[in-house]
């Protein structure tokens, strides 16, 4: 029996990779075209379905053979350090895998017709399937190194799909920005693994928490904080948010599955996975809480000022992921997990329907304005509270499975929705007496917050546990209030801007409209120091190394470039015109820096990457 479940997991994990390899051969083949589209898409859909089935089987397996770690084979053994190909088949991983599978199946089906006749059809599916494989690996990996492998695949495929339309400049640049920003997170991830190993911890997820009690807070922080940085970079939390909204350059389904769903929530999953490491560390938890709270507030503001459908969705996703970070920072991984899973599914559906934005909002605007006081109470108002009550009853009677805190969380979310709706009904009934939209909205939300805090407390045993604290409630309420208050100000600012009147929230509005000025900030703090560093290296190269090589081997031909050196345009036109002539020994001929550019792809890279090495600072 156990063998069956193990085999299913391995097969499910391999299937997307196989499908990706199949699509990749198609993408690389010169003969594959429109006629092969159907079979490529079918292969990828089969891969996704297999992963989904394996995930479903895995969940059943939890019930039958229980949570377990499973070793497939030895990957590396270097000087006493051993890395196994190991899978961790437990509830968290299985649920995450199920979400990946479900959304993967939906996105694969969606892409089949959506990308029809696109020149990069096979390339898209190869990358998409590779991504599904990477996400499955992240969900099921049994040790940090394997997890890092999946993590890297997410980063790589996401950068390549952002730059899917490489004939234009912006996608390539934004893909590159995503990739280079994620390098920071990935570097931190590797550093974290190294720290765990150095301090004698286990890289297997199973034994991750075992060594923790023996560590000092500093040691613990050294291990845990790097993973927080990795998670924040992947999930676009502050200060790494700059790349996230720029990443909606690929085809709509890839944006949906990456930035609406899986990549955006990968950071949350990593923190849940490593919670035995993060939770006990006050520094790491505090960092998670801080970055999450800051992002939740700021991204809510930015969302309110954006005007494009996908940008709004990207920032709204960040705000919600920020809330998940807050929940994690306060010590409730289960709550964050359910929030992430449901949010991922919902946000992806929104992303896929983003092209409808104009038509739908226009239709809403076209509908007649409601007459004051004439709103009928439709049955829809009572669905959510009814549902919540039903679920509470079901949980009380013990009808719901007691796995993964599901009943509590179901109840929590439903009650939340019910409360929000209820608050609206209250405001419908009493709100007319209040003047002004702000006050009414305030009433609605205060009621909702009190309810939220109460439910939050009740469900997670907040008052009973020792970790608890009014602090958590204050943080959550603070985040929600700041978010709400900012959007109220922004709404007012925007409408008054239209009227031509001034308003004090102008600065806030500018901040939100320009996406917190993150781009210039990261350019100044990250790109420019790197550029200077590169320039210094370049100078060293030219002033010191090049003359030396010139002395040693004067005949070495350096790389090709368009055009001859600038100093002698007319003399070198006869032969080797397209080749940079050999510098005279000891000469200080300047390096030419317009490399051969076959396509926009290279051009975009050379702009960002090349300028890192180029002495002319941009």
């Amino acid at each position, binding site marked *: 029996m156990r063998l069956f479940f193990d085999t299913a997991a391995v097969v499910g994990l391999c299937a997307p990779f196989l499908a990706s390899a199949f699509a990749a051969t198609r993408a690389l083949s010169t003969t594959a075209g*429109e006629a092969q589209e159907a079979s490529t898409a079918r292969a990828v859909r089969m891969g996704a379905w297999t992963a989904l089935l394996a995930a479903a089987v895995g969940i059943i397996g939890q019930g039958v053979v229980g949570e377990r770690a499973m070793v497939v084979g030895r990957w590396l053994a270097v000087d006493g350090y051993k890395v196994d190909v190991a899978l961790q088949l437990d509830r968290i991983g299985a649920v995450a895998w199920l979400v990946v599978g*479900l959304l993967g*199946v*939906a996105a694969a089906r*969606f892409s089949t017709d959506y990308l*029809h*006749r*696109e020149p990069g059809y096979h390339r898209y599916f190869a990358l998409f399937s590779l991504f599904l494989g990477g996400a499955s690996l992240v969900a099921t990996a049994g040790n940090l190194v394997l997890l890092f492998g999946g993590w890297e695949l997410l980063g790589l495929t996401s950068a390549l799909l952002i730059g*899917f*339309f490489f004939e234009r400049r912006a*996608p390539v640049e*934004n893909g590159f920005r995503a990739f280079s920003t994620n390098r920071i997170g990935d570097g931190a991830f590797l550093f974290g693994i190294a720290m765990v190993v150095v301090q004698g911890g286990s890289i297997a997820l199973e034994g991750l928490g075992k060594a923790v009690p023996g560590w000092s807070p500093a040691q613990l922080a050294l291990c845990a904080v790097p993973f927080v940085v990795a998670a924040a970079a992947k999930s676009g939390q502050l200060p790494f948010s700059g790349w996230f909204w*720029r990443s*909606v350059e*690929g*085809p*709509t*389904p890839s944006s949906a599955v990456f930035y609406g769903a899986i990549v955006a929530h990968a950071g949350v999953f990593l923190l849940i996975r490593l919670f035995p490491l993060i939770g006990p560390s006050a520094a790491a938890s505090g960092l998670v809480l801080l970055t999450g709270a800051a992002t939740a507030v700021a991204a*809510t503001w930015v*969302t*309110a000022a954006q*005007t*494009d459908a*996908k940008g709004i969705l990207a920032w709204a996703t960040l705000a*919600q992921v920020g809330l998940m970070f807050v929940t994690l920072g306060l010590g409730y991984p289960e709550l964050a997990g359910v929030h992430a*899973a*449901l949010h*991922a*599914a*919902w946000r992806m559906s929104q992303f*896929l*329907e*983003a*092209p*409808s*934005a104009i038509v739908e909002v226009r239709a809403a605007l*076209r509908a*007649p304005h409601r007459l004051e006081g004439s709103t*009928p109470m*439709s049955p829809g*108002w009572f669905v959510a509270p009814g549902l919540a009550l039903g679920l509470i009853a079901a949980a009380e009677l013990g009808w719901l499975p007691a796995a993964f805190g599901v009943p509590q969380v179901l109840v929590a*979310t439903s009650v*939340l*929705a019910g*409360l*929000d*709706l209820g608050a609206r009904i209250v405001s419908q009934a009493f709100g007319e007496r209040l003047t002004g939209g702000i006050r009414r*909205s305030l009433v609605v*939300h205060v009621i909702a917050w009190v309810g939220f805090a109460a439910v939050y407390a009740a469900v997670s045993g907040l008052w009973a546990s020792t970790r608890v604290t009014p602090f958590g409630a204050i943080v959550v309420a603070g*985040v929600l209030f700041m978010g*709400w208050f900012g959007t109220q100000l922004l709404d007012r600012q925007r409408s008054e801007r239209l009227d031509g009147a001034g308003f004090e929230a102008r600065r806030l509005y500018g901040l939100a409209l320009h996406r917190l000025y993150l781009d210039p900030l990261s350019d100044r703090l990250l790109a420019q120091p790197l550029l200077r560093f590169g320039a210094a290296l370049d100078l060293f190269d030219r002033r010191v190394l090049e003359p030396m090589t010139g002395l040693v081997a004067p005949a070495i031909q350096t790389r090709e470039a368009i*055009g*001859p050196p*600038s100093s002698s*345009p007319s003399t070198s*036109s006869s032969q080797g*015109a397209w080749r940079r002539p050999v510098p005279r020994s000891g000469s200080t001929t300047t390096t*030419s*820096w*317009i490399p051969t550019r076959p396509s926009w792809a290279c051009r975009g890279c050379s702009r960002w990457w090349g300028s890192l090495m180029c002495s002319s600072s941009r």
Partner: protein
Amino acid sequence: LERTLVKHLCRTQFNVDGTLADLVRYIQNRPVECMVRQSLYGNAVPDWLTDSARDALDHPTEHRREIHLVADALWRLREDRDKLESPHNGSWRLFQLCQLLGRSADEIAATPPEQLREVLQHLHTFDLSARLPVWQEAYERTFQVRVVNGVAANLADPPAVPQGRPTFQIVVCIDEREEAFRRHLEEADPRCQTFGHAGFFGLPIRFQGLDDAQRWPLCPIVVTPVHEITEVAVPEAVIDLQAHIEAREAAKARQALVLEARRSPLASLARSQVEGLLGLIPWMGRVLFPGLGHRPEAPSKVTTRLLPEFAVAGAPPGVIRDGFTLDEQADRLAAFFRIQGMVDHFAPVVFITGHGSASVNNPHRGAYDCGACSGRHGGPNARLFASFANRPEVRTRLVDRGVVIPADTWFLGSEHNTADEQFVLFDEDLVPAAIRPALDAALVTIREACRGSAHERCRRLASAPHDSTREAALRHVIARTADLSQPRPELGHVTNAMAVVGRRSVSRGLFLDRRSFLIGYDPDQDPEGSILEGVLLAAGPVGAGINLEYYFSTVDNDRFGCGTKLPHNASGLVGVMDGAESDLRTGLPRQMIEIHEPVRLQLFVEATPERLLDIVGRQPILQTLVGNGWIHVISIDPADNRLAWFDPEAGAFTPWDGRRSELERFTASAERYRGAEGPLPPALIRPEARP
């Protein structure tokens, strides 16, 4: 202001003061930069260098080295080009030419070098920009020869049309998508008659539907409508109306919730959890099995009427008013009937059919709707027209204007959905019982034609079932309109290539493969040509507008079109951008023009060449279109069916030489397109002919 601007520019760009002396000195000091600038703005820089040149010139002082590099590359290119001019260097091209023409080396050796040089010079000047127009002309000429041949063959051998009172008549939009619909109607019931008129049916209105907060113009974009029409529920339908309003308000409350949710992290959280949980399964079903359980949009259950029925008093022109007076109604209808030649022989049922297109997840939805109704559905206009034509007061006034509508004729407004091939009737409850049998019989024919049209469309759609039953085709197109992942809900005007202004007898029985705008015009009713002038003024710019929009979006999709739909990002309720941040993209997306054949419109007009020259000479807009070759005009002489084509360079009509190749004959349209996926040349459809 100008001076400050110049000063600022000079300061930022060249780092000199904005005086002439400084600039001259600057230019003298930098001959290389000057040469690059000159080439760049004189369009002498090849595309692959343009960006480097532009970047370098943006900061000339810092990028001197780059400027030099670009200059070198330009210099070398220029040298290379000069080299080609000599016969000794151009031997490869000469060799290719000789191979093509079958000349031997001896012949070439015998030719004096001057002549060779001349040949090479010709080769050289016949470069890409000279070759492309030649190819374009050849491409269009091929198409032109085929369709002219088809029209001539059809005129020479007209199909047998049953005499007597037609079973029903239907007026549809001139849209070329309705060409197939009309053809299938006539095949299903040879005794019906079809007409084509711009889809607003001569009634420019400002319309407010039951669920609209505002009025919308329903007429061609060049017209400013002044007549306001409102859809209002009848008093008897008050209960239905109440339910309808409640449903609408509930939907709006949900919408308000959604908008509010965006503002607060909490509401957003709650919404994501509830919808994520409850919506996941239905949504997955919708993505994985599109169209499953989808029913085409049905009209609302509430019985409504268009009001006001008539205005009591007119108003001065240009002033917005309520509805039309009875005289205005009669005038508009009389003009319409005269254009169509519908002055007698009315069938018991006359359908006035607007059109629209259903699709989901489609920012370019308006591009599929009726162009004569400003990119909206044309149903209200059709409905209004029918309500006018059924009014006894209007009918009496029409008699004075020479149009006699028999008492047993009933007009019905309706709408044809070109995407899911549904046919919706308006005001069906008003139909007199005596008309009912004729109506039911006509509806059977119409539904059959809708299925036929769906079947014919499916042959051009890659994911559609080919060579299947008509039922399956209809099911497919219905599911297609509900598919979130479908960037091609239908193909729109993609096949447009020609237009026929004239009676249906010119094109009836001719398989035109959904390529032709069919604009009804009866020369018999128009001895002076004034009606034709009006028709051409409306149809010429509209037809050419649609045709050229497709033409330009096809020939340069990146510049005149909006590229592929895949990364489009709806922005500011205005339009789409590419990805996260770009300019707004205008024009048609690539998915809409992939199979378009970029030919200019071939406009057939049933009128003598003299009359056409006269009209075109009078109207500047037609002069621009025809004289500059944006549309090709072909005249069909109504008296003897002789064809003549207009040569813009000569400014005169040249008679068609009359040579005609035999056209293929088929018994039905479905026979014609069976098994074919690409565009098809015209063919004759003759049900009686047995192959």
